[in-house]
């Protein structure tokens, strides 16, 4: 990152309401499609990752109601970078949260969202402070959407 200027970028903020999950994934997917090199699989991977991360804000970040979700995307010649951030409750243990099948809401939740994000994006960085919020930074490069059949080990 650093000095390199993006070709295009956007940033938007909306409340953490369930209907905005599909709004967010469609918006980021349409934006990323501006980079011709992305295959349909790449765009599908981005769609899933954004859906997961924004769903997490709706489900987990604001236990007492809705709060703001910020989505930023920057398009470069060789990648798209996406940030999804909230000012919610934060994650106590990020390494644990990234493990397959880890969820703080067992029952209907499988604890797979962040596992899919790691499987489908090329780079994922999660920073979180309990009581302050969570920021997920993701990078997708063209040609990496090869419909991976396996989860990362561990």
């Amino acid at each position, binding site marked *: 990152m650093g000095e390199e200027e993006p070709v295009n970028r956007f940033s938007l903020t909306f409340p953490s309401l*369930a*209907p905005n*999950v*599909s709004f967010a994934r469609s918006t980021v997917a349409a934006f990323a499609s501006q980079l011709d090199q992305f295959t349909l699989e790449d765009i*599908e991977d981005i*769609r*899933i990752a954004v*859906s*997961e991360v924004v*769903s997490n804000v*709706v*489900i987990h970040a604001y236990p007492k109601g809705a709060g703001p979700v910020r989505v930023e995307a920057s398009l470069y010649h060789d990648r798209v970078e996406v940030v999804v951030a909230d000012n919610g409750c934060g994650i106590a243990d990020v390494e644990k949260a990234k493990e397959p099948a880890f969820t703080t809401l067992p*029952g*209907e*939740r*499988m604890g*797979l*969202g962040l596992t*899919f994000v790691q*499987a489908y994006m090329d780079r994922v960085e999660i920073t979180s402070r309990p009581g302050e919020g969570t920021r997920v930074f993701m990078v997708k490069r063209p040609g990496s959407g090869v*419909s*991976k*059949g*396996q*989860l990362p080990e561990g």
Partner: protein
Amino acid sequence: MNLSLETIEDVLLVRMRGELDLETAAKFRVLVEEALDHRPGLKHLILDVSGLSFIDSSGLGAILGRYRQFAERGGRVFVVGVQPGVGRLLELSGLFRVVEVAATAEEALARVQGEVGSVDG
């Protein structure tokens, strides 16, 4: 998301069209629960996902939740008409290891009604 429910004896057939995510998974759960309230004799579930264009972990969780509900009643749960995009997530999530898979709703229905575990060739 468009959901249509049909009951054939003790089988609930749900046809899904569109995207199964956080918002629509909640609708799916409520509709199936209403069907079970109205017809307590329902035992098996067939999910026709051939019209499903998108699924994420919330959608997978909702399918797993319905699987548990019907398995508890001693019923069988089928997913039919799986398209590749949706299929890779069903695969990754491990759902294919618990639900039964059939090509069409008709095939699943025949298997349930004939109580045949699987069909050959």
